[in-house]
């Protein structure tokens, strides 16, 4: 959810502190410059009655579609139980009752061939925390993970802030060619290219990060593709971290999501680690819950050491267990509503995009659409992309520019549609306004350029008159 446009060099002299260590300054500057928009938004949120001039956030991948259902479920009487055990120090890997429930939950929803073992589950306070701790235990400082890009921007923070682990992008392309069957297709070829590139640069790559369903593209990998990627990783002795945070957010019935845990045999089970959490699938990003599932007991033990730095309150763990164990509610009330609302919102937004003639990737999962605004950038550069992003901000609309996802090509933006209808309507209205403005400005600029050209070619140069130069 953070937007990492800035490299360290962008703010060399902007933060001076005599009290912080160098790494303290680095962390602080990097984070705060990048999260400026988010912080501004926190201080001035749109409200349909109380603050219509506030910011509409269609940039942070937060699921607000079913907060009402969750609020209702979490208020029910079975959620209010308190026990001494919940108020005391406990197993830092997560309360046994919750790890058991997570194992059961994932066994069912991931359709695993065998029952998952609670001993292989580590629970921390959020997906970012799981990532940060994994980066620490799998890599030494300066080592790296391969990441197909465009990819969730938050990884860069989770691997860097504490762990100082680098990301090596595997750049995917929008253009469909012989090597590229569909836009942003991930192939083993590209993975190998990126790995080779890293080796040449002297970077030690320890693992591969895959997000499935993918963020920001919304792709869902086929079982065959996933197997290929896992075999690539095994061949080069890499860990694979599979982030399945959006696993229940596939709303197109024609698409089947296959969890990596559903595979009958993994090429390298000791190096395959799966992350899941409730933030996206259950609309409770404020709850702070993330789980790691791994067959590798050494990884699980090392992760457990971080348990007390990334702990969740006993009461929250209890509520999560109550939530996850309520299959009836999940299958009969929640998921149907959730998918329906996702479909509706997706349909609304894509309809608008088509009307505005904005190209986009039409996928059936996730909370967002990957849209192409290249036609509004002249020239098509990251600088222009940033300017357009600021123009959206001026209109109190937050979108995420492609650079934040390490996208190689300028002009792409991620637009979140997992918002309530009235918010989405107002948001799309502002979106349209900005595009209209951008187009107008573009046209005016083109006219000005054309006029200047005319003037300079129609007037002969005489010694007495000044030479008009093309601007």
């Amino acid at each position: 959810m953070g937007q990492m446009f800035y490299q360290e060099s962008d703010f060399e002299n902007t933060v001076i502190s005599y009290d912080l260590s160098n790494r303290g300054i680095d962390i602080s500057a990097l984070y705060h410059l990048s999260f400026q928009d988010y912080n501004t938004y926190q201080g001035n949120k749109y409200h349909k009655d109380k603050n219509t001039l506030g910011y509409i956030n269609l940039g942070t991948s937060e699921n607000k579609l079913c907060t009402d259902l969750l609020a209702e479920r979490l208020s029910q009487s079975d959620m209010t139980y308190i026990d001494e055990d919940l108020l005391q120090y406990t197993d830092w890997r997560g309360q046994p009752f919750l790890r058991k429930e997570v194992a059961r939950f994932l066994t069912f929803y991931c359709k695993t061939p065998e029952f998952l073992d609670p001993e292989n589950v580590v629970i921390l306070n959020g997906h970012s925390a799981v990532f940060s701790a994994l980066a620490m235990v799998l890599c030494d400082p300066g080592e790296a993970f391969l990441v197909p890009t465009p990819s969730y921007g938050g990884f860069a923070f989770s691997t860097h802030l504490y762990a100082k682990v680098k990301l090596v992008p595997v750049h995917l392309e929008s253009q469909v060619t012989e090597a590229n069957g569909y836009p942003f297709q991930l192939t083993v070829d590209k993975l190998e290219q990126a790995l080779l590139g890293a080796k040449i640069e002297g970077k030690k790559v320890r693992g591969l990060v895959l997000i499935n369903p993918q963020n920001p593209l919304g792709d869902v990998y086929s079982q065959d593709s996933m197997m290929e990627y896992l075999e690539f990783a095994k061949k080069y002795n890499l860990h694979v971290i599979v982030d399945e945070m959006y696993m229940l957010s596939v709303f197109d019935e024609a698409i089947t999501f296959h969890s990596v845990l559903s595979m009958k045999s993994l090429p390298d089970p000791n190096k395959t680690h799966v992350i899941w959490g409730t933030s996206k699938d259950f609309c409770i990003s404020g709850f702070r819950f993330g789980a790691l599932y791994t067959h590798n007991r050494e990884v699980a033990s090392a992760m457990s050491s971080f348990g007390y730095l990334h702990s969740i309150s006993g009461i929250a763990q209890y509520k999560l267990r109550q939530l996850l164990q309520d299959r009836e509610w999940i299958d009969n009330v929640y998921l149907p509503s959730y998918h329906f609302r996702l479909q509706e919102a997706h349909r609304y937004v894509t309809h608008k995009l088509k009307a505005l003639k904005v190209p986009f990737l039409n996928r059936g999962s996730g909370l967002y659409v990957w849209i192409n605004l290249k036609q509004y950038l002249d020239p098509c550069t990251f600088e222009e992309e940033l300017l357009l992003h600021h123009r959206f901000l001026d209109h109190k609309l937050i979108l995420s520019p492609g650079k934040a996802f390490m996208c190689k090509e300028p002009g792409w933006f991620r637009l979140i549609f997992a918002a309530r209808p009235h918010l989405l309507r107002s948001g799309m209205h502002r979106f349209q306004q900005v595009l209209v403005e951008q187009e107008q400005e573009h046209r005016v600029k083109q006219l000005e350029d054309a006029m200047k050209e005319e003037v300079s070619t129609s007037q002969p140069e005489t010694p007495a008159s000044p030479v008009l130069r093309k601007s």
Partner: protein
Amino acid sequence: MSTLPQKESRMTTACPGSDSIQGLPGNKGDGLERECSRKPDQKPLKFYGVGDPTAMFCSSSPYLSSRGSIIKWFWDSAEEGYRTYHMDEYDEDKNPSGIINLGTSENKLCFDLLSRRLSQSDMLQVEPSLLQYPDWRGHLFLREEVARFLSFYCRSPAPLKPENVVVLNGSASLFSALAMVLCEAAEAFLIPAPYYGAITQHVYLYGNVRLVYVYLDSEVTGLETRPFQLTVEKLEMALQGANSEGVKVKGLILINPQNPLGDIYSPAELQEYLEFAKRHELHVMVDEVYMLSVFEESVGYRSVLSLERLPDPQRTHVVWATSKDFGISGLRFGTLYTENQDVATAVTSLCRYHGLSGLTQYQMAQLLRDRDWINQVYLPENHARLKAAHTYVSEDLRALGIPFVSRGAGFFIWVDLRKYLPEATFEEEVRLWRRFLENKVLLSFGKAFECKEPGWFRLVFSDKTHRLRLGMQRVRQVLEGQPQVAEDAPPRQNQEP
């Protein structure tokens, strides 16, 4: 002066100088002298030690990074005692022969009050906004409440400000974040020892920051007024010692009320330590986690936030949490109070990794806001129960002729079992500790707090009477079966069945 490799500098701390063994009988003395004579030049080093959390690490894993292997080793080598305890916990009905835990510093006396309060209807509200991404520094309503709460209970001269408050999921996380933003890797914090041992990992795991121990002595000498007293002189010597070994010290950690000693610093002492830190441009992190757990009023505890004038407000950071004072260590809520916006902002950058759920934040705000309940129900009852439990245990200890240190704060008594060690070594200390565990009572041994002198144990008394009674009985059984080292070497007593 030669620089010793760190492993050795830890071991030398096991060799006390001659002045701390005054009054101990000849045979023990001989053993010590023999040890000391092997390392004649160690005496100056007893005032400090540079910690190396990885000193005993040996195995690496093919799956993990180098630091990953060390991190895993921390988990594997975590207190044998707690693992054993968790597999055989005492339960009045289901497991009466299980282990009584007098080792973990947790307040088990007031769960009834807390459970009742946390079940009340105002605690059950679920606002949609609480389920969404927050201001990572902590919801404003909570930071405002914390500022008000600390202003009142710390008796600050001026109202404290919400913008100086940062909220995280526990004080451990605060130490981790502070270590990260105040220090470079391998730099250090000074800490008076004995100290709450878990801090070692809090600052090391992510931060890779070490601790420089300022060793305190049980022996009262010179201008000191009490055992294990911290003086500026000791701080200066430790700092010098660290510098001479090329260890860069960036800050000082003070725990007040102190764990494990249960001691409190007077305002004058606090002022001295803060002046020392200012002289050397060190940050001071004051951990006041037991601030409301002072059950002996006459002790006169003063928070650092109550001081009229801090020597260096920009480098004074206060840590507080609900774990101890409200007996809810499982709830995971800690706060930082600092006037230094650079530090607050830097810590906030890491808050996403140490966030607590919006619902928990809401409940904490409700709890802190309820002054009536706190002042009229909780605190009086809590202090009364703590005092009663403390009296029970301390009387038992007196009856057994066991010396101890305790000043009326915290949940524990620092017990002197040196006379029960045939040799003043940490091996004997662990052996005694294991004997307690075998007799189904868990205590914490002094080495876990980096106490310089073997033979000290921390005994937690904040538990229900029936468990205390049973626990003390089991402690007594072990000690009565243990030969004491007395001057006239009494005949060995028969072991109790």
